[in-house]
């Protein structure tokens, strides 16, 4: 397990417990069970305490944790018969975005999401989950397909943002994002989104303009990264803690602001400590959200989705 900087107290305790057990293994006569168990309990308590009061910046760190389950982990855990469909039919297949047909509780659906990768090789292949225009155009194509065959669309959001590259700009990054958002607002099938890690700005909205949006408890969704915001407004990228605070990017604040519909509880210590549990919880949330939308007519789904966004902004945070 990789520790985040604020997890240092926990790392110390778990380190000590590990040391004790290692010593016992080399000294067969030594019994450390009691001490080790006491340390485990202490570690468990420390973990609970830490995660009970995460600051917004700490949540950013958790949301970006490299061992957190990523899109493909959810696809594998929650869907059967996943059949990836590739390409935008214009230029390329963007590996930062995965999409395809799958079954969710036996029911055929379209699943689309950002995939960050989980080791150096796959991270490079996935461009760290930062999509190019082709990724958004692939998503548009798949949403169209889903719409024609009346399949619900499930999107999993996990991106630092759209890729800031030369080719991406030349091929119309902005237009691709705008069209993807537009497509989200047009399809006559249920569209549900879950922010599983980072919801980075326009690159996230392009998939998350949905009938229902859920966020994992320690995920973030923001107009700009705290570092980016700090360097612009504080003229100092090191002020990311302050920026994270001010931006109100946590699931808890965003629910209060009426921007998201649901928070999915994470295992103690975050999704990275118990991926299977987190994946199951997300599955339950998707099931519930699809349930809320089932039986609605295509035009109702479109109308309600639009109205939901038009109505946003009536709730502020109380002083």
């Amino acid at each position, binding site marked *: 397990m990789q520790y985040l900087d604020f997890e240092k107290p926990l790392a110390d305790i778990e380190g000590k417990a590990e040391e004790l057990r290692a010593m016992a293994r080399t000294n067969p006569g030594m019994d450390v069970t009691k001490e080790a168990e006491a340390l485990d309990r202490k570690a468990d308590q420390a973990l609970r305490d830490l995660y009970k009061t995460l600051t917004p910046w700490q949540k950013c760190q958790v949301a970006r944790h490299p061992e957190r389950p990523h899109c493909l982990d959810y696809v594998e855990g929650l869907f059967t018969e996943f059949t990836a469909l590739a390409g935008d039919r214009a230029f390329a297949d963007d590996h930062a975005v995965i999409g395809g047909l799958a079954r969710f509780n036996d029911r055929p659906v379209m699943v689309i999401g950002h995939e960050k990768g989980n080791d150096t090789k796959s991270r490079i292949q996935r461009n760290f989950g930062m999509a190019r225009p082709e990724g958004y155009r692939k998503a548009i194509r798949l949403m169209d397909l889903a719409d024609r065959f009346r399949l619900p669309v499930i999107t999993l959001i996990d991106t630092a943002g759209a890729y800031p590259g030369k080719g991406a*700009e030349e091929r119309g990054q902005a237009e691709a994002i705008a069209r993807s958002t537009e497509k989200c607002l047009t399809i006559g099938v249920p569209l549900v989104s879950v922010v599983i890690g980072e919801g980075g700005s326009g690159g996230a909205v392009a998939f998350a303009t949905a009938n229902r949006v859920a966020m994992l408890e320690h995920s973030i969704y923001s107009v700009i990264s705290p570092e980016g915001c700090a360097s612009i407004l504080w003229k100092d990228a090191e002020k990311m803690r302050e920026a994270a605070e001010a931006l109100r990017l946590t699931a808890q604040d965003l629910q209060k602001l009426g921007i998201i519909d649901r928070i999915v509880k994470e295992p103690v210590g975050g999704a990275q400590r118990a991926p299977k549990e987190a994946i199951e919880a997300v599955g339950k949330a998707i099931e519930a959200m699809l349930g809320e939308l089932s039986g609605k007519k295509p035009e109702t789904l479109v109308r309600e989705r639009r109205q939901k966004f038009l109505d946003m902004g009536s709730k502020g945070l109380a002083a």
Partner: protein
Amino acid sequence: MNWITNYVRPKINSLFSRREVPENLWTKCPECGTMLFHRELAANLNVCGTCDHHMTISPRQRFAALFDGGIFTEIKVPEPLVDPLQFRDQKKYTDRLKAAQKASGEKDAMLLAEGEIGRTPIVAAAQDFSFMAGSMGMYVGNAIIAAAERAVKLKRPLVLFSASGGARMQEGMLSLMQMPRTTVAVQLLKEARLPYIVVLTHPTTGGVTASYAMLGDVQIAEPNAQIGFAGARVIEQTIREKLPEGFQRAEYLLDHGMLDRVVHRKALKEELVTLIRMLTGQPPAIRGDLAAPAEKPADAPAEKAEAKA
């Protein structure tokens, strides 16, 4: 022209205190360095007479030049919650907002108007880059929705002049949510089969390009306007190479298939009239001096005769 001069100038002057006036008499062209006298610059729609550089123009100034006789009616924008996040960086957001309001005399970064251009009724929206970098917050979102709704109600096209650094960070996710909200506004126009024409002006970047500013039926840009999603500096840092000359400029986008046309500010009005009249099946505009609004068009009897035949 006299009418505009007499009517608009006192209002403009009143915005500046006496002490500020001398400094504002001359503007240095940021492109070629020529010193430009304010009156000539305004008459030239803030385009440098030497190098044709298009400088920022306020929405009010743009509308005065765009609408026939400089006459337009403002459309009211529903006011959003102010500072919903109680945002504070080095300054309070409410203080930044007040300062921008005081400096511009406007409520926020977008102005709406209805009126006629070349005798063609339109609704227009113009973004004000001098107001907090034209950033898109809830007010701008409300403005675009109000403009679209008004256009649908009056069955008129919407012409939108964009100028923005992107989303307004001080409104956090509520600013990001203006991307879907303004996209809904564009859909209202499309469903009503009304032309939506976007004129991208310098600079239009970030979330604004990734929503309403890239969804026009016709995409026009002013010469040399910077248009892009990501900032050039961020891109250079990411890809660790120098970007080509003219990258993210209007002409570069035109070459890459992202725009329909690049049009000089002084030719814009005529171009808009031509496009709108064709898209809405109206006869060609009458060129030259416009007849007074009360007069019947000269060709009206002929049309009648034709209809009888």
